[in-house]
């Protein structure tokens, strides 16, 4: 069991997650285009989904969301839900293609990030918090989505590495 844990995606995911959460807490609270905080952790969860499929995307979102909640002080599990869904949706988008080009992965990452960020106020509403559905969401979600898309050329390979998924080289696949 221990071996499977070490050989699984968790250690790499936690390692990268720690670095990204640290950057999120320092650099990205100041780089705020249109007064919106870019969600790099969510971007990685979505990128992992776009690189490795819905199941691994959901797992990445769950783990990264938990790390995010622990540091940000938000209700533990709320970001796991939103990021998990973001990763899942990004991975589910993969079903339309076998081998997505970089620009397609970018779109999938953007979709996942948009869904994840949209889910944040939804989850918060479910746990009794009010006042999160404001017109500002119409600024926040597009900015977070575009930022995730811009980061995706970097984050999709990173997500693939974290989830221990190898990119299939279709030129070397032999016909049955």
């Amino acid at each position, binding site marked *: 069991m221990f071996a499977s844990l070490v050989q699984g995606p968790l250690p790499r995911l936690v390692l990268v997650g*720690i*670095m990204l*959460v*640290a*950057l*999120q*807490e*320092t*650099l*990205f*609270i*100041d*780089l705020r285009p249109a*007064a*919106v*905080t870019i*969600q790099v*952790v969510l971007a990685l969860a979505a990128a992992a989904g776009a690189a490795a*499929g*819905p*199941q691994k995307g*959901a*797992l990445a979102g*769950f783990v990264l*969301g*938990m*790390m*995010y909640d*622990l*540091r*940000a*002080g*938000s*209700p*533990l*599990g*709320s970001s*796991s*839900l939103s990021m*998990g869904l973001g990763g*899942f949706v990004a991975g*589910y988008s993969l*079903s339309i293609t*076998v081998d997505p080009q970089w620009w397609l992965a970018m779109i999938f990452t953007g979709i996942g990030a948009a869904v994840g*960020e949209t889910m*944040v*106020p939804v989850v*918060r509403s479910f*746990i009794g*918090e*009010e*006042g*999160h559905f*404001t017109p*500002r969401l119409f600024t*926040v979600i597009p900015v*977070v989505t575009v930022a995730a898309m811009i980061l995706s050329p970097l984050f999709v390979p990173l997500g693939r590495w974290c989830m221990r998924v190898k990119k299939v080289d279709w030129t070397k696949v032999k016909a049955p």
Partner: protein
Amino acid sequence: MSLYTPGRRRAILLLLLSSLLILTIDLRGNALLDGIRSGYNQAMRPFESAAEVVARPVRNAWRGITRYDDLEAENQRLREQIQAMQANDIVARASIAQYYELLAYFELESPGSYDRVVAYVVGQTPSNLDQVIEINKGTNDGIREGMAVISPNGVVGKVTDASSDRSRVMLITDTRYAVQVKVVRPEPVTTTTTTTTTLPGATPASVLDTTTSTTVATVPGATTTVAPTTTLPDPQRETGELAGRGPGESPEVIFVADTPGFGLPEVGDIVSTSGGSLSLAPADLPIGRVVEVRQGSPAQGLIVVVEPYANLDDLEFVQVILYTPERESGTNTTSTQPD
């Protein structure tokens, strides 16, 4: 490749249920999860310090690009403010001295009579919904959950989480923030050119008599002060609950009590904490001024929009007021309760 095999569905369902379970446990309050959170935050410190080193040049470059015009405008505005404040300084000093004399005479408490801890803002939440900052002082300095946090201009928020050397402060604009407040009507009092000599041994009672008509400058010696028109708060007031409305939105006072003697709150009225035996914030901490009054739904009643005095977008130093009401001593409060 099948996306919906039973195994995959089970795994995703498991993650979903795990999130919900953890969320439920955390919301109900759990010492184990609090311990894990505290330990994780400690473990993250070195990584954040390293990230800070990497981030600083990038951040400075970004600020240089995006905030140059703002800084120039702010610089100009601050120069103008300094000139205006210098004009009021003498009168203000005199009024403060007189205020403390009166407080001492009547043995009343004031916000200034509580110990405070000055803290440096070291971070803020990365969330786009929450309005939370982190300061570099914690329980080692006497800070407890619920304590009011102020800046030189007014109330900033309250402590919602305190570890040994760090605390989280929920700003008054956060949607979860609530505090009991009073809306006070300032009435303009025209002051005249006054010449006041404070004689050694003069009783505060005699000072009290003079305040009914003029603002008195208690500068030792024969001092002539040309004072501008100023305002004094009227004792009549409305009470209500101040609630945050999220980033970029001004807080609102809701559940405004209907006091016929006061009339409707008006633009320009002063909003400050109302205090009380259960409140974690002492009375009379200034919060802001009324900028809009509107009628809500019948259930909501009157809604008073408040512009905070404190500049919440650019906080560097804050003060935590080490105030704990007697009935709350030794107990913790949840962050969602009005204080």
